[in-house]
């Protein structure tokens, strides 16, 4: 079984700071991590490989430094890493990203064997769009299972997969055919620690590095900023509310009483409403 896992190297968003004057992101010194949602996809892929044999190929598109995340994925036990890096990819929106990744997956297919399953995380923590998985599936003509909470069964001989997909108000149990694309939901597994042997292998491993041309991109105008139908016109910080927050003064009384008094003074109807909701009438 050959499984491709798409990952993204992202800034550790908990540590992103915005410059107070220029409203730009201060990237200096911000550590990068594998998008946390992608680790659930990687672990799901590794579990299937352990069960059925075969290989896991991790793929990322990014700057040369994204090699760090690929090596990290190898330490968890991935078998091969492919880095798609080229200045033509810069500034890609989700449509241009799916073009590049789908092209690279076709090249992986030719070079290392056709994947049975392509995995992605549910979304990334920097873009938060959840669009790239479905986009890759559409471009490759793969069936898609998104928001998968659990893979119930894969039958490599019958070429089928059965999975539980999170939907509004419940879980859909779906059965479809391989090859397919799966986006994994968070908290569905825990990434393994990785064996010492994998860590040693990862340190020495040759990362397969492809430019747009190497990956077989025929139309460079479909990549990066040029290939992106959406453009970001303005980036800004929201302004403070015109009306300042009333800061409750509790210098001469209990803070809780002072706060409640202020709330009910502002919204006189609130007390009656809360009494109702508190007692379920």
């Amino acid at each position, binding site marked *: 079984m050959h499984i491709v896992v798409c990952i993204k190297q992202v800034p550790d968003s908990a540590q992103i700071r915005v410059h107070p004057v220029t409203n730009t992101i201060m990237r200096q010194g911000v550590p990068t991590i594998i998008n946390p949602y992608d680790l659930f996809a990687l672990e799901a892929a590794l579990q299937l490989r352990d069960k059925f044999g075969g290989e896991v190929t991790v793929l990322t598109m990014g700057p040369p430094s994204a090699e760090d995340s690929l090596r990290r994925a190898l330490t968890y036990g991935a078998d091969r890493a492919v880095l798609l890096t080229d200045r033509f990819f810069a500034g890609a929106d989700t449509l241009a990203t799916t073009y590049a990744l789908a092209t690279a997956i076709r090249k992986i297919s030719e070079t290392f064997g056709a994947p049975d399953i392509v995995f992605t995380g549910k*979304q990334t923590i920097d873009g938060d769009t959840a669009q790239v998985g479905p986009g890759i599936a559409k471009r490759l003509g793969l069936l898609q299972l998104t928001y998968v909470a659990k893979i119930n069964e894969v039958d490599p001989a019958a070429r089928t997969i059965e999975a539980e997909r999170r939907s*509004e108000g419940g879980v859909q149990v779906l*059965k479809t055919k391989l090859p397919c694309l799966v986006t994994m939901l968070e908290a569905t597994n825990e990434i393994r620690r990785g064996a010492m042997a994998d860590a040693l292998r990862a340190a020495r491993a040759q990362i397969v590095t492809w430019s747009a041309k190497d990956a077989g991109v025929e139309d460079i105008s479909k990549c990066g900023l040029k290939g992106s139908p959406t453009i970001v016109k303005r980036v800004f910080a929201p302004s403070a509310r015109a009306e300042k927050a009333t800061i409750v003064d509790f210098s001469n009384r209990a803070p809780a009483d002072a706060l409640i008094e202020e709330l009910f003074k502002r919204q006189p109807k609130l007390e009656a409403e809360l009494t109702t909701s508190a007692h379920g009438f």
Partner: protein
Amino acid sequence: MSEPTKAPPAAAGRAATKKELPEHFKAYKHVWVFIEQERGQVHPVSWELMGAGRKLADKLKVDLAAVVIGPPGEAVQHAAAESFCYGADLAYIVSDDVLTDYRNEAYTKALTDVVNTFKPEILLLGATTLGRDLAGSVATTLLTGLTADCTELDVDADGSLAATRPTFGGSLLCTIYTLNYRPQMATVRPRVMPMPDRVEKPATRVIEHKLGLVEEDIVTKVLSFIPDRDSAKSNLAYADVVVAGGLGLGSPENFQLVKGLAAVLGAEFGCSRPLVQKGWVTSDRQIGQTGKTIRPKLYIAAGISGAIQHRVGVEGADLIVAINTDKNAPIFDFAHVGIVTDAIRLLPALTEAFRARLSPHSRDRIAS
């Protein structure tokens, strides 16, 4: 159907890359909202989007259309009829037995076909698991732009959709345009837009469109649907009162204080993103851009600093109360009432004070 020629906009910065809209896109007109219905229920986000779509359509002086996809029968007809009460000028229906359950293949074909046939300039979908699954596939099929999880939608002077959303992990906002492609697609999360008033109106223009798929064409089969046992799980987004905690609580044990206050108020409890990342609270309780968006009458945020990704999830609340030790915390920029004190100490006192005040005895007092 000729589009009036518009003066090119005064371009600035990267907007200078704007070219004239290609000829074949000029026929694309009107604003559409995808009406999400499953098992006979319309997701409320669809009506919220109708409210937003109506404003865009009025500004553009075009029609607002609802697109309903599902199995033949009462539910789909009713959803289409309801859409007129929420502002639709017309409704498109694609109904077929293969559309009984949501499946990406069939729904993607249904929506893509109506778009290609009737050519909307703007297409809005709810950012639910269904809407996001569908929007990504449809946009890629149409090779057009899609902006996810918008918090604000507007039409600028030259008629382009200006879609604003948080970016960089929710630390800034950005406004995104789809300039030379149609339709301009966007998704919006539930509760981000206010629910418009329902006004009784007759269903006038309803257009049925054939799907042209048979069950044998569709590879994916739905084996079963398991409804959530704990339906309260999904009530957070629609709760009237919400109490939430953040990192300022200091420890997972202290999160009990949030639950305690919520219980006394008959409220739902929630948390900020870091608490989910730390594993203190489950992700279905997360409030903010990547969690739930809420619009309660009262929102109490305890020990939450108020990052933009949190702010966009709570700004629709009628009354935002912030409890924080740091008087410079960004949450005081958008809260209505603030108190600068330690939430760990205040929460138990607040719980007791509310309990005393809201007890049946005090209710008698109000009534008298």
